[in-house]
């Protein structure tokens, strides 16, 4: 059996493992490859009305969680952004917290 972690559609590509630094130092850090939540869960429409789905992407300061942290793919991040901006207009999600 290969030791691959079971993960939705992210089977392709190497997982990001620790690399050798320039000065020959080993980085034992192992990063699991991030997978877009919307791709793996097959969520097609990112809707501004579904606040519960959007909340994990707006952490405490109510900023949009960047892609490099959430692992969301570009297409879904774009859709997520519009959804969050719409929800903000309707005061479903805050613009900022005091």
């Amino acid at each position, binding site marked *: 059996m*290969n030791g*691959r972690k*079971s*993960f*939705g*559609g992210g*089977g392709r590509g190497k997982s990001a493992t620790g690399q050798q630094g320039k000065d020959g130092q080993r980085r034992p850090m192992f990063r699991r490859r991030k997978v877009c939540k919307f791709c*793996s869960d*097959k969520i*097609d*429409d990112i809707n*501004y*009305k579904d606040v519960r789905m959007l909340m994990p992407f707006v952490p405490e300061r109510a900023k949009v969680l960047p892609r490099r942290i959430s692992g969301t793919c570009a297409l879904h991040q774009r859709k997520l952004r519009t959804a969050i901006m*719409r929800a*903000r*207009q*309707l*005061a*479903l*999600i*805050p*613009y900022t917290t005091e």
Partner: protein
Amino acid sequence: MNRKYELVYVVSPEASDEQVTDLHTQIESTVQKMNGQIEKTENWGRRKLAYEIGRHKEGTYVLEVINGTGDLMKEIDRRLKVIDLVIRHLVVRVDEEQGVVERTKARRGDTSRRRRVARGLPPERQPGEGQRGDVDDDRDDRFDMGEELR
């Protein structure tokens, strides 16, 4: 050219239920006057606002799905701006987005069915096949032996 729009408006918490229904009938009459129709109305009830608007901390949310022209939505937008009872509103066109979603869904279904048939499985998912993720992980079948060889 008829298009599908979603309208959400937030009514001030001081408004009575009659005032909210009154607002709805007002919108309905505007829609009918301009040859549109209301597909769906949803009252989300009173919700806490994420931030204060004016001095309000709460609001009653109402969603309407409207079929109509752009001019109709312009008119509704103009009217809602004038009404002080409505503290916030948003009009979004949804028909294009919905079409895209349906197409992706259909395409995904087709691919999955085709792949299942290619693997010699019935085209639809059977109950008790396990999680979706587990099945996807099995795609790597380079080292798999056929059932009969094992």
